[in-house]
């Protein structure tokens, strides 16, 4: 076979082997998480915050820092996109100009 076809077949066999190992390890043990945070959120979210939607109450009141930093991350992504689009100039040795 050609060299790159052999390389891809080797990678495929390795990835399938790793997938089967991980699947068998996951299904072999019967572990359950302790539902302490789950019970707290369901019992007390309606009393402390008067919001029927518990998911919105979590990301607006219990975990407000995640939301604030995610708004900052969106502004970093927008400034990166605008910078790359505006500051791209053609240099002398660019391949498209030759």
């Amino acid at each position, binding site marked *: 076979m050609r060299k790159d076809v052999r390389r891809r077949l080797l990678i495929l066999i390795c990835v399938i082997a790793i997938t089967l190992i991980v699947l068998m390890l996951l299904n072999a043990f019967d572990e359950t998480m302790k539902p302490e945070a789950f019970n707290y959120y369901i019992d007390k979210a309606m009393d402390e915050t008067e919001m*029927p*939607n518990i998911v*919105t109450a979590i990301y*607006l009141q219990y975990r407000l820092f995640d939301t604030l930093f995610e708004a900052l991350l969106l*502004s970093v*992504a927008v400034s990166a996109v*605008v910078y790359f689009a505006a500051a791209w100039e053609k240099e002398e040795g660019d391949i498209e100009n030759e």
Partner: protein
Amino acid sequence: MNERADHSEILEDILLFIYPLIILFGIFVIVTGVTQSGGGFQGGAVLVAVLMCRYLVYPDDMLGLNAIKKTDKIVLILILVLGVGAILIGFSNLPQYIKNIYNMVIGILIGIRVSSGLSVIFYTFADIEGGD
């Protein structure tokens, strides 16, 4: 012939009909995020589809980029001030109606923030590859 190929009338008629329905659905998902499923992030993603519809109908006519950028920056500053202020004041001792107003206001601000941020990214990509 090239003008005919760029501007298709079937798309224009259907999208003119659907355009206000998408805006209404996006605002509905943002505002009723308090009692039903939804919220700021989900409604913001729906509102970006409005700008993509407009790009499909008129590819050459991209207006309003400066207004969207200015809205983006002002809403970011408002979100940061409101969020940090709510943490520093001691949020659980306030009366109930201030909490209701705070929930609604910060939900709407997050929706505007996500929609304007993603539409600035979309406009920048369209400006690079379009035109000429």
